[in-house]
């Protein structure tokens, strides 16, 4: 008892000393102004030299710093884009006034992602691109995702206005699963749908602090998935960026009414952050985007075999089996000779001989009449984002963060089909503890597909709901009878087909009619598992990860960081996407990594060695090493070499998807349970050729699925040739092993052998009419090899002008003899001319960016074909009103309204012209 009293007394004394210490602090106040424009500069770091005390200026440039140091003190004022300044404070009688001089920030940026510790971008051991909030503010882009397209080596696949998928180093696709997107430390990939949803659910534009892009393999530090790169998007800390800010963008699209009527574009963003005390701050943000989406309008004819195919001549009027790329419902096809004529000959035997003569005895393939994308996909794209965070400083160095990002809306995605994501809702929530020397984070991604539906399948089912395809009174039967009748009356084949379609389509619901809408709504609201088109996906992800920087203890030997994570997917689609009709499916993964960095030869060489081990419950563990070296060839000039590896486990869909996509085609996962479920071995399947050749004559064996891995070697240089000229260049070579792809196998119809199938295909039959097609994931046995290079310059001219440009190239050296879907232009580049402040008080600014990529062959599950070269001009002009803390910007994405696509079947992207009014945007 006495002992306890002594402890209590000691505590009280300690507390008293604490209060005494608190009583001895001083408070320094002041204001930081831009020396040129005289406007307050927000988010400027103000620290006390040789102390851990520090703060940031608020939106007016004011700061208030509490320190236990005694006067005089020296304040260090720093911010990117300004020359760091030291100010001596000897008296507190008046606020400190700081004239902050803008300076070139070339090469001064600090990046974290390259090594998971802060370092100057010039010293990054691997290629890295950084986009700051200022870059976003000055970019001629309507959204920050569009800024990514201007980075070196980046391709963006645009499914729709708000669904854009950045890719690096090849294998472009909508929803690229080889590129990680990490938003505020959280993997932004929808765990069930398998695409990153940064454009829909990520940060609001005003809350983006910076974007870092690591092109190339990056699994060693960021875990599975970063085969071709990792994008890290970080939000603004409410302690640093405070106050209310908002931006209203109003624009117009579809100005030439080529695909849609002229339509407005609305983008409203608001952010409010407040430092309640030195320990507690919060932020809340919202963003609303509403517009008429770009339209998928590729009406070209497509010869489809499961998820493979090619563009062919023909249109609805001239090809009875027409299947337009962005026309839906016409994927339902049948050979009326083999499917209907036998029935007709049974009823009218005298016709049999005649029927045999038609079309020279070859198959008469006929497709049902489809509807255009504008008829079946909700044109109203809507995106509503809500995010918020509570930051609490547990100590001067340790900060706790409770944050959430939630988004909902409508958008369009191109996968194996076109999907209308309607009322999609995804939330990401995290709790995080941050310290310069360690980090602990737990988060979850909660996915809800809302009322999303497969536009292709839904439209096919609408056709079926109106008039079934099969049966004696079905559409094909009616078509065939009318066709035969017309031929008996002397009609040419062409005329008879036309008459037959007109006859079979009598009473067909007209697009946009009440009858069509009723049918369509009926079908799309029925879950896929019950014969409709609706997804019920509510797959979730749970993740916990931590990292420790051991450098304080190991500095004498090397800087060392270690980390690890545990991840659990819970698949829950009620049988509409995955094979989970009987219950949820769990998938567990864990991983751990370590990195040691050592400076050698007086910091001329910096060597870093990393390694990571990950294990997925369904696959063997993978170890991925990384070795990097940075050689300082001169001050601010560095050469970099890296050997990196990366891998990805088959995605949740590649493991468990079980989705009928029509055309008698079933997407299935690689899990072995599918083999029994579909009798794939007892009723053998045969691999179809993806080059038009004959199918394999021996049964497909279903080898075990494995993780895909890549090893890359990279050489790069980044440096300031003069203080105003930054040059960055790289070249890489990559080798993929166990490359994951999908292949098509056919399970012949009962009573049919693969020899019959082969023979029928040679005569022009459609594979899906000869058996059931399965699209199955597979690993290649041969290696896929890629190489490429990129180079950029950034030159700062006097009077705030700057020019920059980059050129990059990605090449497939060896596709391993199979369909690797490289889908990437060989060359791309862009050129920018900009000024961030000219005219009176440097209030005006502009940016003109020209982008180009050459033509390339796009190989996607939805469509294959040559994508024409793309030339795009983006521009913006802005003017600031410092006293009102406002700015006006007028800008255009695709100024000359030159429509383009960057993936077959995707939306036609045209010009978007906008005016923005921003308040307190920093």
């Amino acid at each position, binding site marked *: 008892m006495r002992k306890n009293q002594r402890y209590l007394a000691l505590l009280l004394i300690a507390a008293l000393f604490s209060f005494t210490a608190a009583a001895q602090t001083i408070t320094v106040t002041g204001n930081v102004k831009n020396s040129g424009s005289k406007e307050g500069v927000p988010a400027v770091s103000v620290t006390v030299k040789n102390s851990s005390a520090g703060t940031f200026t608020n939106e007016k440039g004011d700061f208030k710093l509490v320190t236990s140091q005694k006067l005089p003190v020296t304040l260090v004022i720093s911010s990117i884009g300004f020359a760091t300044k030291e100010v001596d404070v000897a008296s507190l009688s008046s606020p400190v006034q700081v004239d902050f001089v803008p300076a070139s920030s070339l090469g001064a940026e600090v990046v974290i992602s390259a090594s998971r510790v802060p370092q100057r971008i010039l010293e990054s051991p691997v290629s890295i691109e950084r986009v700051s909030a200022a870059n976003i503010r000055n970019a001629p882009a309507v959204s920050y995702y569009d800024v990514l397209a201007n980075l070196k080596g980046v391709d963006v696949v645009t499914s729709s206005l708000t669904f854009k998928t950045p890719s690096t180093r090849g294998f472009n696709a909508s929803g690229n699963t080889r590129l990680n997107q990490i938003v505020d430390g959280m993997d932004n990939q929808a765990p069930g749908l398998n695409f990153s949803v940064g454009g829909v659910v990520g940060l609001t534009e005003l809350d983006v602090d910076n974007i870092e892009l690591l092109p190339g393999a990056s699994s060693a530090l960021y875990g599975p998935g970063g085969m071709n790169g990792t994008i890290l998007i970080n939000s603004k800390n409410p302690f640093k960026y405070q106050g209310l800010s908002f931006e209203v963008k109003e624009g117009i699209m579809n100005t030439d009414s080529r695909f849609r009527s002229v339509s407005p574009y609305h983008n409203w963003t608001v952010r409010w952050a407040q430092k309640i005390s030195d320990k507690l701050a919060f932020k809340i943000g919202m963003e609303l985007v509403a517009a008429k989406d770009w339209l998928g309008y590729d009406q070209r004819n497509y010869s489809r075999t499961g998820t493979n195919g090619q563009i062919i001549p023909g249109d609805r009027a001239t090809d009875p089996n027409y299947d337009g790329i962005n026309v839906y419902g016409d994927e339902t096809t049948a050979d009326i000779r083999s499917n209907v004529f036998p029935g007709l000959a049974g009823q009218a035997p005298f016709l049999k001989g005649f029927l045999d003569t038609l079309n020279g005895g070859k198959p008469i393939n006929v497709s049902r009449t489809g509807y255009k994308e504008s008829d079946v996909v909700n044109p109203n794209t809507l995106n509503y984002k809500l995010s918020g965070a509570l930051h609490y400083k547990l100590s001067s160095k340790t900060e706790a963060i409770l944050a959430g990002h939630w988004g909902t809306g409508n958008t369009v995605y191109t996968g194996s089909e076109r999907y209308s994501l309607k009322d999609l809702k995804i939330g990401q929530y995290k709790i995080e503890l941050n310290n310069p020397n360690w980090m602990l984070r737990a988060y979850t991604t909660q996915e809800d597909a809302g009322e999303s539906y497969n536009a292709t399948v839904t439209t096919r089912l609408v056709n079926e709901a109106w008039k079934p395809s099969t049966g004696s009174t079905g559409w094909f039967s009616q078509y065939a009878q009318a066709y035969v009748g017309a031929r008996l009356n002397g009609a040419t084949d062409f005329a008879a087909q036309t008459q037959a379609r007109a006859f079979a389509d009598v009473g067909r619901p007209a697009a946009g009619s009440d009858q069509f809408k009723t049918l369509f709504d009926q079908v799309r609201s029925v879950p896929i598992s019950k014969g409709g088109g609706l997804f019920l996906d509510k797959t979730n992800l749970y993740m916990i990860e931590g990292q420790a920087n051991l450098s304080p203890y190991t500095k004498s030997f090397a800087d060392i960081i270690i980390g690890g994570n545990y991840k659990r997917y819970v698949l829950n689609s009620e049988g509409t996407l995955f094979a989970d009709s009987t219950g949820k499916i769990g998938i567990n993964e864990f991983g751990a990594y370590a990195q040691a960095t050592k400076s050698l030869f007086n910091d001329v060489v910096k060597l870093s060695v990393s390694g990571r081990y990950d294990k997925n419950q369904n696959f063997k563990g993978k170890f991925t090493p990384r070795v990097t070296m940075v050689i300082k060839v001169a001050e601010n000039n560095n050469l970099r070499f890296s050997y990196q590896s990366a891998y990805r486990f088959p995605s949740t869909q590649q493991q468990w998807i079980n989705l009928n996509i029509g055309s008698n085609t079933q997407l299935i996962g690689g899990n072995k349970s599918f083999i029994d479920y579909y009798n794939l071995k007892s009723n053998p399947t045969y691999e179809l050729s993806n080059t038009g050749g004959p199918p394999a004559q021996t049964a497909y064996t279903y080898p075990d699925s494995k993780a895909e891995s890549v090893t890359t070697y990279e050489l790069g240089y980044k440096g300031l040739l003069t203080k105003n000229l930054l040059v960055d260049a790289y070249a890489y070579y990559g080798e993929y092993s166990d490359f994951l792809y999908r292949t098509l196998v056919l399970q012949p119809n009962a009573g049919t052998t693969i020899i019959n199938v082969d023979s029928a295909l040679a005569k022009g039959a459609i594979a899906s009419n000869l058996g059931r097609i399965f699209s199955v994931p597979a690993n290649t046995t041969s290696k896929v090899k890629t190489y490429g290079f990129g180079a950029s310059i950034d030159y700062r001219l006097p009077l705030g002008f700057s020019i920059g440009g980059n050129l990059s190239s990605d090449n497939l050296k060896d596709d391993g003899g199979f369909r690797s879907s490289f889908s990437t232009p060989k060359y791309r580049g862009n*050129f920018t001319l900009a000024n961030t402040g000219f005219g009176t008080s440097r209030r005006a600014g502009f940016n003109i960016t*020209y982008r*180009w990529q050459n033509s390339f062959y796009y190989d996607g599950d939805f469509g294959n074909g040559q994508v024409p070269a793309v030339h795009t001009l983006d521009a913006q002009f802005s003017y600031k009103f410092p006293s009102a803390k406002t700015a006006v910007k007028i800008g255009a994405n695709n100024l000359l309204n030159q429509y383009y696509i960057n993936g077959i079947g995707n939306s036609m992207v045209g010009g978007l012209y906008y005016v923005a009014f921003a308040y307190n945007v920093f």
Partner: protein
Amino acid sequence: MNIFNKIKNSGAVVFAFVMLLVSCNKLYTDPTPLAVPANPSGNNLAKTVAATASDSLYYKLILKSGILTATPATITDSTLRFTMFVPDNNAMKVFINAISGGLVPLAAPDAAFAGFISSTSPNYIPAATALAIVSYNIIPQAITTASFPTSFPNIIYPSIFNPAPPLSSLLRLDLYPSKRSTASYVNNVPLSSSDALASNGVIHHVPALLTPPSTYLWDRINADPDMTYFKAAILRADSGSVTPGPLQSALLNIGANLTVFIPTDSALRAAITGQITLALIAQGVPPATAAPTAAALASTPAVFSNPALYSSLTPAIVSGLVAYHILGTRAFTVNFPTTAATVYTLIGGPPYPGLSIQATFTGPFVTAATVKGAANTTASNLLLDPTPSTGKSDQNYLNGAIHKIDQALRPQ
């Protein structure tokens, strides 16, 4: 200012360059239509026939048929496609001479034939008959001889003639174009000239008018005094079934398409006599007695309904015998191969025995044709006489063709 000028100038160059490039954006959204065969210019079929002097009599028949003014339009419609088999004036004269019972002699002037055709007398050529004939000679596809089938037996092409619309609106009588060596045929008639193109089809000339059949195979078998044994065999084969039995029904079915090799009465009588003789000898009757006994038993077609022979001429046995004389396709003698080839009968395909058929041609005409059963020691000859209705070979009916033969065919 200097730097501004430099920027301005270089900016202008860059801008011009960019504008040049941007203007090159291509976007492919529209499908490429497939080439649709254009309607050839020139006269349509009707006008082509009308303009051919040597076809003037047939054109009179066309006019008489009313097909040129019928709805929907056929050979006058340039958007449709037809094949016409057109008899020249000589062929028409033979036809008119025949149906007029010699009233219009072959040597009569053309005007006399034209007058006969155009006459409204119902005793001459009624319009409905003219329409049936003209329609029967039109195939609703444009078929040049290049696409005529060259292998046995032929391809069935329906004409536009529906003999019984109430039965089925899709019902059509068929024609059988074929090509052997350098000659082309429709049914058993060699073309005299071919492939005359009109804007909406093709014309082939025939040296004899094809008239549509109007009766069934059974009608001929039932009425022909030299097919009584075969008829009796059919009835015996069908005995025990509801009348008409399956064989008779097939021979009466407009949907069937058969070739029937019918032994003459004497041929079938001889075959049955032989069979009975063998049966009697097998039962211990001395050959010297067996032969006359069998001849007496088989002396009339009633042999098939003789209760004494029920055990040896069972319906199954007789049915097999009859079916072995019938092919499931319609073959005219011109469709027979020049070297013997096996074809299968209604008994079934392999392993059942087939028939070996062969024809000998002189020019475009068949001068000899044989068919041999698997158990026959010699081939039976087709009795060549293609006279319509009363002839012995290439007798064309609604549901097949008949060839008379001089030996019964024996499968085993």
